[in-house]
C-alpha cells in the first residue's frame, strides 16, 4: 500500500538540504518500524518519492512525501511514531493512504502559498514596490537554462502578493506562486522588489494540487473518501485568503 505523508520543517533543521531530508526520512521510517518496499535490481532503493524541493534555509508547514509500503502501518499511531524518529524541527502532521492512480506530487502540485520576511527597505517602500509589480502586465526575467539565456514573463506565476506588516527583523509578505507551467521561485521574486531587498526568511504554508480541475490539498487529493482522517486546512484554494497564515504563526 502507498501512503502520503505531510510534514513540517522548522527551526535549525531548515538548513539541511532536500537530499538530506530524504535520507533522514529513510532512516526514520526504519526506526519507526515501517516496512518500506524496495525497488528491484542491482542496487535496491526504498520506494519513497518527494514533492517539490524546498530550498536550504526555507521553513515549511506543508511538505509531502509518498511512501510505498510492503506492509500496512497503524494509521492512528504512525504519525507520532515517525515524528519521534525524526530530528527536532521535522514533524509528521498527517498521513493518508494513497489511492492507486493518484498522480505523483511532482506532477500535480500547481501552486504554493508562502510567507516571507524581507530586509533592505522599509514597509512603505516595500508596499510601493509590491503594488508596482502587480500593476505590470508583464515581468520579464532572464534565466539560464542549460547554458542558454531565455527570457520568461513570470507575471502570470505571481498569483497573489501582499504586504503582511512588520516582522522581527523586516517586513512580512504573503504570496501565492505557481509551480506548474510558468513558475517563479521566491529567491527570484524578492529581488524584483528592489536591488537592496533581500529575502531573510521564507515559510511555505501550503501546497495545492489540481485534480480534475479542482484544487485540493495534497492529502485530500490522495483519495477523497479519506478526508475524515485528515487534519486541518483542507478545502479548495482561496487565493484571496493567502495572507491568513501571516506573521502570527511565525517562529
Amino acid at each position: 500500500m502507498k501512503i502520503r505523508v505531510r510534514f513540517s520543517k522548522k527551526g535549525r533543521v531548515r538548513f539541511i538540504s532536500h537530499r538530506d531530508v530524504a535520507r533522514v526520512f529513510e532512516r526514520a521510517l526504519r526506526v519507526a518500524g515501517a516496512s518500506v518496499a524496495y525497488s528491484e535490481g542491482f542496487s535496491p532503493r526504498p520506494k519513497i518519492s518527494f514533492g517539490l524541493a524546498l530550498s536550504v534555509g526555507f521553513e515549511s508547514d506543508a511538505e509531502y512525501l509518498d511512501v510505498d509500503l510492503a506492509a500496512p502501518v497503524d494509521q492512528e499511531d504512525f504519525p507520532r511514531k515517525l515524528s519521534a524518529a525524526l530530528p527536532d524541527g521535522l514533524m509528521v502532521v498527517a498521513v493518508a493512504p494513497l489511492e492507486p492512480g493518484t498522480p505523483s506530487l511532482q506532477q500535480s502540485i500547481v501552486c504554493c502559498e508562502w510567507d516571507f520576511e524581507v530586509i533592505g527597505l522599509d514597509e512603505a517602500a516595500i508596499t510601493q514596490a509590491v503594488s508596482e509589480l502587480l500593476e505590470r502586465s508583464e515581468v520579464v526575467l532572464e534565466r539560464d537554462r542549460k547554458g542558454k539565456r531565455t527570457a520568461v514573463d513570470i507575471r502570470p506565476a505571481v498569483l497573489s502578493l501582499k504586504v503582511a506588516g512588520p516582522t522581527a527583523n523586516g517586513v512580512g509578505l504573503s504570496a501565492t506562486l505557481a509551480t506548474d507551467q510558468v513558475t517563479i521561485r521566491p529567491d527570484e521574486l524578492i529581488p524584483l522588489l528592489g536591488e537592496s531587498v533581500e529575502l531573510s526568511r521564507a515559510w511555505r504554508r501550503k501546497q495545492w494540487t489540481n485534480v480534475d480541475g479542482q484544487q485540493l490539498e495534497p492529502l485530500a487529493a490522495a483519495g477523497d473518501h479519506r478526508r475524515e482522517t485528515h487534519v486541518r486546512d483542507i478545502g479548495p484554494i482561496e487565493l484571496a485568503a493567502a495572507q491568513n497564515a501571516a506573521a502570527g504563526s511565525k517562529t
Partner: protein
Amino acid sequence: MSETTVRHSTAPTVWPQLEGLLHRVSKPARYIGGELGAAYKAPNKDLISWLFVYPDTYEIGLPNQGLQILYEIINERSDGRADRSYAPWTDLEALMRAQGIPLFSVEHHTPAGDFDVMAFNLSAELTYTNVLNCVDLAGVPVRADERNIDHPIVMAGGHCTYNPEPLADFLDVVVLGDGEEAVGEITDIMAQFRGSGSTDRTELLRELSHLEGVYVPSMYVAHYDGPALRAVEPRFPDVPAMVRKRTVSDLAEWPYPKNQLVPLTEVVHDRLSVEVFRGCTRGCRFCQAGMITRPVRERPADQVRTMVKDGLDRSGYDEVTLTSLSTADMSGVDGLVTDIMNDSDACGAGPLSVSLPSLRVDAFGVDIAAEIQRGRRTGLTFAPEAGTWRMRQIINKLISEDDLYGAVDAAYSQGWKRMKLYFLTGLPSETDEDTLGIGELAKNCVDIGRKYTKRASTTVSLGGFVPKPFTPFQWFGQNTDVELQRKIFLLKDSTKRMHGVNLKWHDPKATLAEGITARGDRRLGPVIEDVWRRGGTFQEWSEHFDVSLWTEAMERHGLSIDWYVYRHRTEDEVLPWDHLDAGLHKDFLWTDWMDALDEVGLPDCRWTPCYDCGACTGYGIEHVVASATAPAGGSQGTAGPRTKAVPVTLGMGPRQ
C-alpha cells in the same frame, strides 16, 4: 531524536549571531548540530568541560570514531561534559572574523574559549595549520607559552601525535595511544586542581605530565648540535624522561560508541561503524597504524553482534561497516558476517549492507564481499601496495600474484565489473621495473575480467610514500617530488595504451608537505605558524593546498628540505620522537629495516612465535585473538589502512 535532546541553557551562545549568516554560506547544515546521539549536556561551570575538535570539515570529522568514543565517555561522567566542533569552511570563517564570532561548539554554540579543554584529533599532518586556525578562531593564543589560566588546555590525540614535536610550540598536552582511560584520568586531575583553588597553569600541566600516556611538550627541552638533534630532555626530575603510550588491554570493556552520531547531512562515512578489533600485526613496514596500535585486541563476536543490532535499530542505517585495520583477519569473520546478515533478515527492515574497510587480497576476501554486498554492490578495492614480488617482500606485504589474480578472477566471475587497486610509489629501493610492474598487474587484472565482461576495468590509485615515525622505514629518505612525478609519468606512459586501465595519483607536492611535518622536530613550529599566517589552511584540499607556502616558509626559517625529508637517517641518530614510546623497541624496528633491505619478510606474530617487538612484552599484555590459527586462505595479503586517505587528490576534495 525528539524535543528532549535540546536543553536550554543560560550560558553564552553565538547562535543568534550565527543564524543570520548561515544562509550566506555553503552547506550550512555543517554548523547546526542536532545529530541523533548528540549529548546536549547543559553548560555548567561546575563540570570539567571538553570541546573535541576535528581540524577539518564537519563531513570529514563527524564520522571520526575516536572522537565520538571520547565524547561519550566524558559525557557519561558526572563531573564532565563535552561538545564538539569542526573547522568552519573558509566562507563562514571570513564572516566570523568580520563579525567577531569565535569558534563554537555545534551543540550549544558555546564559544570554544569557554571550555576547559580543547582536544584535537590529529589524523593527518596537513591539518596542522587548521589546528592553529581553530585555536586562533577560539580567541586563544596559538602559542602555548602565551596562554594563561583563563584559556583552555589545548590538547591533541590521534595517530599523528606519535611525533608531536612540530606542534610542540602550540599544544599544551598530548595523549599517546588509546584515550579511553586517559581522558578520565585527565578529568580527575583537572577537577582536583580546580578544587585546590590554584591558578598556576604550569602546576596543572606538570601534574598532568605524571599521567601515563600524557606528554606535556613545555616540560621538555630540545638540544641540538647544528642541524642534528642531540636530545629532548625533561626540565624537571619528576617529569618522565620517556612517555609511554596507553593501551586498552580489553576492547570488550569499551563497547563505544554506544550512541554513534547520526548526522542530519551527508558525511564521508554515512553508516554505522563497529570496531571489531584494534591493532594489526601483519607487519607491513610502511604502515604506521599497524605498528603503533599493537597488539591485536579483538572484540568478542557476541558483543560485535549486539553492537550492530542495537546500532541499526536506533540509527535506522541500512549499512554497517566492521572496522579495523584488516577486518578479514578477525577470528571467525565469515560466521560473524553471516550471523549479522541473518539477524537483519529476521527483523525485516529491508536489505542490509555490511562493508569492510579493506579486503584481503585472496578469494576468501571476495567470498566475504559477495556475502555482504547482497544489498548493494559498489566496486571492489584491493591494496597490493607494490608492483613486484621483490618490492612486496621489502614492504612485508606478502601477496603473491596468484593471490591477487585469484581474488580478481573470483570478483569478476561473481559479477563485479570495476576493481580499484591501491599502490604506493617512492618505496625503499624501488626501481623503474617495480613501478612499471604496477601497470603490468593492472593489465593482467583487466585481461582476467575480459573473460567475464567486455566492460572490465581496473583503476590504479597511486600514492606517494611518506616514511612515518615508529615504522621500520622511519630511517628512509623520502623520494623528492620530482622523482615521484617522474615515476608517475613513467607509469602513465606505460598504461596509456592498456585498454581498461585507469590511473589516478596523488599530488607529489602534497606528499612533500606531508613529509616535512611527518618526521620534523620542534624547529618546524615556526614553519607551520608561517604557513598558517599566510593563509595556508585546509591544506588537505587540493583547491587550497599550496606547496610554495611550505617550501618558502622552510627557506625563511633557514631549514633544509633535504635534511628533513630526503635524507636517510643513520642507526645512531637521535630521532625527534625518541623520548616517546609507542611500544616498539628501536632495535626491533632497525632489524626489521635491515631485513627489508635484504628482501626478507616477517610473518604475522599472531600465529607464530613472538618477535619481542615490545608492544606486549613491554606492557605485560598480549594479543586477544579468538582463533589460534591463521584465517583460511593462507595468504598474508591484506589491504593497508585506508581510513586516512592520502592527502590531496587531483581536482576534487581530499577523500573519494
